[in-house]
């Protein structure tokens, strides 16, 4: 019902960020995106594969990515997702927001009580 809940423990915006970042390196299909996130984060980020697709559709509705059905080398017909110019801008924005958040968290965790 509520679209914000994710069993993976990730916030909705974070998943969007991961997808956009993945697509920065080139068009990819849904399964490939899932594998990339898994590999690159060294299995730390456990994303339910099924939760990718609603996120992909949402991003497509917002115009951050586009999709096309294409034939792969192995003869399979797969849907490939690509980043758009708007998506690139969105990615940059989300990245800087995330970095700020990370800096803030680091500062919080470094402070010593009483100092």
């Amino acid at each position, binding site marked *: 019902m509520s*679209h914000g809940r994710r*069993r993976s423990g990730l916030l909705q915006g974070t998943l969007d960020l991961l997808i956009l970042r993945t697509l920065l390196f080139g068009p990819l*299909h*849904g*399964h490939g995106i*899932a*594998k990339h996130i898994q590999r690159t984060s060294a299995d730390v980020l456990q994303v*339910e*594969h*099924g*939760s990718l*697709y*609603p996120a992909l*559709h*949402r991003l497509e*509705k917002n115009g951050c990515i586009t999709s096309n*059905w294409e034939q792969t080398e192995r003869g*399979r*017909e*797969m*849907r490939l997702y690509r980043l758009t110019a708007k998506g690139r801008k969105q990615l940059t924005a989300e990245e800087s927001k995330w970095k700020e958040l990370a800096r803030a968290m680091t500062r919080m965790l470094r402070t010593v009580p009483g100092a």
Partner: protein
Amino acid sequence: MPTNRDEELEREIRTHLELEAEEHIAAGMSPEDAHAAARRSFGHVIRTREDVTAVWTNVWLDHFWRDLRQGLRSLRRSPRFTATAVVTLAVGIGATAAVFSAVDALLIRPIPVSAPEELYVVRRAGETRARFPFEFYRTLNEPGGVFSGVVASFTFPLTVVEGGTGTRAKAAFVTPNYFDVLGVRPQLGRSFRDEEGDALTVVVSHEFWRRRFNGRASMVGESVRVGRQPFVIVGVAPPDFQGLQLGLAVDLWIPMAASPEAIQIPAFRTRVDVVGRLAAGLSIPTATSRVRTEHQRWAEGVAPASAGARTKARSIVLRPASHGLESHVRDQFRASLSLLVGICACLWIITIVNVSGLLTARLRERQREIGIRLALGVTSARLFVQMLAEAVVLLCGGVFLGVVVAVSVAGAIPRWIPAWEGLDLRLSPLVLTITAATAVVTALMVALIQSATIDRRRLLSYVVPNVPRFAGCRFRVSTALVSGQLALTIPLIVTASLMVRSFVNLGSAETGFARSHLLQIEVEPVLVGYSPERASAYYTALLDRLRVLPGVSDASVSNGGALSGYDGIAALHQDGARHEVRTIAVGERYFSTLDIRVLSGRVFARRETEGDERVAIVNAALAGRFLVDEETAVGKTVTLEDGEGGDHRMIVGVVENTTDANLRDKTTPTLYVPAGRSALLVVHVRTQSDSAGSIPMIRQAAASLDPNVPILAIETIDSRRRSVLQRERLLAAASTGIACIALTLSAVGLFALVSYAVATRTREIGIRQALGARRSQIARLFLMDTARPLALGAMLGLGTSIALARTLAAFVYGVSPTDSIAYIMAISLLVLVAAGATLLPLRQTVRVSASANLKAD
């Protein structure tokens, strides 16, 4: 390539699972384990499908559509309730739509020309319908002038003869560029060419063409006799174009060049209305000053010696003409329509309250269902949307039926109010939009009120059976609603009673002249080519013939007055001041024919009415206002303005006051002068008995004198009075109808409420019966309960009526807006209806035995 989004998603998911399984198999898993692992990593497929669908669909819209269907189903299960609700809504909405279509046709809609907002009419400040000489128009029609296109027109009644029969027609004499500048294209044939050669041509209106020539396309190119000459019909105007003035439906348009030779019109009639489109980029102030300069220059060119050309020019103004020229009908009915809109608004509110009450009463059967829904987690917002959906379904039915009602009512009104003849009361897009908006607001209000009556907390606790069934509704809101309905009904009843009595009073008001046995004949020999002298002789000869007819006691002529619809004005110079007074030119024996009492002095002698004697008769009001007193008025001199030295007349008599054209005022100062050799007169005939019976005889007498002169109208004074009172008749009938509807709705609302209360308290009634209470005692109990909202409603209603008294004062006649009889009647009616509505639902229950009532749930 898969086309459906759902199919595509299925393919994607399938491919995804296959790829994942392949990887696991490549890593050494068995195919079954691989597929299971793939599915585990994926998560819930169904959930994915739902979430993807939710991204692309509007969740709220989807749910609302489902609610609509659910509402329709539940309404179909209770047909009687649905029918009542739909009819109630139809009445409220239909009445609103009908009144709005009248408001639109009369006040809002611009004339059907292109870009009506660009049109301006040249007038003078302080005068409603100042006209200008044609030569002045010509100076404005120069290229490069103030207007990019300017037309001139004036109207005149004419007779059209075709195939041996003559019809009266309203003709507009226009400049040849009339249709082009206005952007009106004829539906058949053409408009006028810009040459002089087009003089004897005519464009007919759609209505006239349909009515008179049966819509025969062959009429274009045919020749008909208009006035004295044959004219060729060159075109037919489009269906909705009726000229520039609302309420004056033009039948013929004739080039102005045709006027002098072909049709004889008195010189004072050839001043024109000037209407034009401003040249591009010109602002109103600039244009106005340029027109003024033009007028000054032209006036000085015409009469270099006369002073005051500059002052005369300065009074010129440009008024917007998007609604055409000034309209008598619009001014006459503007206030009445506003009152009707107010009355309809009250009816609309009553309708909302009523339907809300009906729906609320219906809730009692659905309390458990709603309680369950609430327990399952439906929010109040969702519940509201569900009620809204039901209200929308009801309103669709109500609007449909209401529009049907409105169309039939709107179609019937112009037939009933002659002044609105030719008015197009269709439901224009504007009216339909307003109706739809009204419906939407109604649905929202109904749903809101219903939500307010649901007590959420209590409902939740009553999901379990074997608990009192009706505890979950707030009674007080329903009672307040009924009070509100009653409160609004009272001003409606009071207004209706006042309007009816005003109408009756006006109908029987003292006119100062004969109330019955009087006929007015409109016959104009000049229209068929009589010269003024011959016309004057015609009237004299006609009078001689009429006076000897059996049953006729006397006959006379005048140029207006006595509800004829014509009223002349002259300027009186008295004591150094200028006053405009009503002036009527009368023939011999006028006062005896009309039975107007002579207070002092005498009436005109025969030689005075035929000649040019400088005499006058005044009425008591004029004598009292301007001549010190009526006793000594005889012998005094009055001076009338005539453009030269002044027309001095000696007063030979004083007569009693007569009513003005509206039947309301009997104190208008009036001056009577001899008709002399006037060529345009109304003939009055006094009969000894029923005047309508003499009409055929009179027609014959006129025909025997000259059959070529058509009688344009013969009306009894009663018929004239009815014409004059159209507006009052409309108000009386409409307000009474609406008051009856409101009373019925209030009764129904109260009935529903009491039925509900009785059903709630059936067990209590059973107990009382078992304890020995009589029927009258139980009845009294419920009557007392009704008395409270009734008293509250009555007080509010009376207060509202008194507050509105000042608004109503402009409409009433012969009765005060705070007249006690009206209020007493309203209250008594309400009490009667309330008592009936309370006792009726009770009847069934008190007849049943106590034990049956005790067993009720």
